């Protein structure tokens, strides 16, 4: 009989293990309940918050006014059912019973030992108990209790439904996480306080038990001690004897000490965790952004790049390891992460392959820039890397390490100087165009698929009549690779234009905007 039962149970466990549908359903509920990255969890959380708020509201209104029948029904049956189902689902997805059975069965087969029900049940019970005894699960369970209307005290537990909301709100959970780090200090303080309360209450009971009409029993004494030690001091019970007042004075002094101790524990817990909280906040904000530019190093160049990128409304994140510079970046109002960009962990956390467009290495140290370059390139083939260095020999190494662009500040300055000396007028013109200080500027326009330029010749469009100058044409070398182009300066009139080509044009902002607008529109018309 026992053998038959074992075989049935074990084969059922194997059936569950091999049933894709069961696995899928279970994974779905697990995602819905526990996986923060699962898109639908948000809606489930919102739904639960709604249920909780509605149920709490009904119970509160019910204290004085009678709520309508259907609301009462909703609260008593529907809400309770939802809570019970949620509780059971959480219990279910917490661990896999069938896996335990299979593991034990295979173990017993391997060692040729008899299959022990006792062991299996103990293991299962342990797993599930781990869930049942967790604080969140206890709150869930207590929150179900107010449905049992016969016991009035249980109504107090309606508050636990509000506590249940904690589960659905991350910031509130964070608060408890922070306090958890100060567990030892808080326990110590609690023990100390309970000890003092106990001593004080016994003393006041002994001194005033018969004399003070307000203190009838030990509970009154404990109540007085607690009210006094927490510096609340209602004053409904006050000592009347000299001995009692002496006790009160001691209790008050101890109370002030204890309360300030408590405050300092909480404050220090927060200030210790502040960088972490900030980091989580930054990471959450950054996670939503695509095409992120990482500025590694917040020195002179880093600051300028950050400011200019902000002006042109690009997404960027400053990564800096020096706390002073991190603080400066924060004050400047940028997203900043205090981390070491030479560590692969840092870049992986930022989802280098998916979200990051470019890595800008502008620390003051060439070697660190080389390290960041190697780090980024080893993790991603496609990310664009711009690195700063001070010497050609380092530049060579940077290119070898995989940097797409190398910036040598002194060389750029020298180049600008030499262009200025040779051709001051051309230089000023170029400078004006490049820095976009005047209204004339150079811009790039991509030939969109299906636009009027797609398939046309350069000569088909009269650029000069539109007050534009076509400086160059960038044609794609490789159809798949978006970044490989070759440049044709001053393209002849019979050059064919194809989708994906980039025109570099010179003109006033108005003309360029007009040209871009027309190009966009022509795409729309072709589609219809």
């Amino acid at each position, binding site marked *: 009989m026992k053998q038959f039962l074992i075989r049935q149970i074990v084969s059922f466990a194997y059936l569950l293990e091999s049933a894709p549908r069961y696995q899928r359903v279970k994974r779905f509920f697990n995602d819905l309940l526990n996986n923060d990255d699962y898109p639908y969890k948000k809606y489930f959380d919102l739904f639960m918050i709604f249920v909780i708020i509605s149920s709490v509201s009904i119970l509160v209104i019910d204290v004085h006014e009678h709520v309508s029948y259907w609301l009462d029904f909703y609260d008593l049956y529907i809400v309770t059912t939802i809570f019970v189902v949620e509780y059971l689902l959480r219990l279910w997805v917490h661990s896999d019973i069938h896996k335990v059975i299979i593991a034990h069965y295979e173990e017993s087969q391997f060692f040729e030992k008899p299959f022990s029900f006792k062991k299996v049940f103990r293991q299962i019970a342990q797993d599930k108990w781990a869930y049942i005894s967790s604080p969140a699960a206890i709150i869930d369970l207590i929150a179900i209790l107010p449905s049992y209307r016969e016991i009035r005290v249980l109504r107090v537990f309606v508050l636990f439904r509000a506590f249940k909301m904690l589960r659905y709100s991350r910031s509130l959970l964070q608060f408890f996480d922070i306090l958890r780090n100060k567990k030892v200090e808080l326990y110590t303080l609690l023990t100390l306080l309970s000890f003092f309360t106990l001593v004080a209450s016994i003393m006041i009971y002994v001194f005033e038990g018969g004399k003070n009409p307000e203190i009838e029993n030990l509970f009154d004494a404990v109540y007085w001690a607690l009210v006094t030690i927490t510096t609340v001091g209602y004053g409904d019970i006050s000592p009347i004897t000299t001995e009692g007042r002496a006790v009160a004075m001691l209790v008050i002094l101890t109370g002030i000490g204890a309360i300030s101790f408590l405050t300092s524990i909480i404050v220090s817990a927060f200030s210790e965790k502040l960088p972490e909280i900030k980091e989580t906040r930054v990471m959450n904000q950054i996670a939503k952004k695509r095409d992120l530019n990482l500025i590694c190093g917040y020195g002179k*160049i880093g600051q300028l790049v950050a400011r200019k990128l902000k002006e*042109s409304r690009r997404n960027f994140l400053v990564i800096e390891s020096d706390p002073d510079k991190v603080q400066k970046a924060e004050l400047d109002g940028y997203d900043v992460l205090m981390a070491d960009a030479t560590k692969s962990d840092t870049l992986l956390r930022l989802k280098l392959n998916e979200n990051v467009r470019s890595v800008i290495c502008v620390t003051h140290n060439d070697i660190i820039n080389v390290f960041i370059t190697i780090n980024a390139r080893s993790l991603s083939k496609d990310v664009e890397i*711009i690195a700063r260095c001070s010497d050609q020999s380092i530049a060579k190494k940077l290119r070898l390490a995989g940097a797409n662009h190398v*910036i040598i500040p*002194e060389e750029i*300055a020298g180049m600008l*100087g030499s262009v200025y000396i040779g051709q001051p007028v*051309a230089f000023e013109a*170029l400078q004006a165009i490049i820095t976009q200080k005047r209204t004339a500027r150079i811009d790039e326009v991509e030939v969109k698929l299906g636009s009027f330029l797609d398939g046309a010749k350069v000569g088909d469009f009269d650029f*000069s009549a539109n007050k534009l100058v076509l400086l160059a044409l960038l044609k794609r070398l490789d159809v798949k690779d978006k970044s490989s182009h070759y440049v044709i300066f001053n393209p002849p009139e019979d050059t064919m234009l194809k989708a994906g080509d980039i025109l570099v044009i010179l003109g006033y902002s108005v003309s360029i905007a007009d040209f871009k607008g027309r190009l966009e529109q022509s795409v729309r018309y072709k589609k219809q």
Partner: protein
Amino acid sequence: MFDTKNSNLEIVLFGYGTTGTKIYEMLSTNFSKIKVVDSDEKHIERAKEEGIVTSYFVDITNDSELEELGIDKKILFCAMDEMSLNIFLALSLKSIAKESTLLSISTSAENTRKLKFIGVDKVIDIYESSANRIVDIITRPAVTRVMDEIIYADNGISIEEIEIPPNSFLEDKCVQDVNFKEFGLILIGISDKELGEDFIFVSRGINHKFDAGDILVVMGETPALEEFYKKLTESG
């Protein structure tokens, strides 16, 4: 290239430290008459070792020593490593050589402001220009690519300014009368001396009349530019 201006330009580079060395490298590719001056003997020794004959050890805080260099009507480039020294030097040079063109590097917006106040003709902020370049690479990759090809790459494409000589074939013609595309050139703009130093971009659409003395800014390949220049001077 198109007049003998470039080769005749005399440049005095002040400072041969880390920054100065780099700037000398860049300047020496385009210009031949460069004097190097530094107040640090080691820097000058190194310059001499590297084959720069025209390098001089001068106490730059001493005005008479500076005057002895013969710095009037030349191009003076201040590139001392120490910024305070650089600003002081710029101030001295401005007071001694009023006719010279004065350039200076700068390392911050603060210093740029001071140098401009002194009256330096062109202030180049090392970090700002690098930052500009980085941002351009990110925000306008194609434009940056084209600019690189024009300014940095040695592929024969360049932007040049050409002064219209008297009695050239362009005289009394308007912008729209001349097809620069025939020459394989792009006319970017004109600086008209009569109208002041203001630069007129062609794309503004004004049909400007060419006069002798106007400066054309044209882009194109070197042979095309040379041919255009030849035609311009021959017709005069």
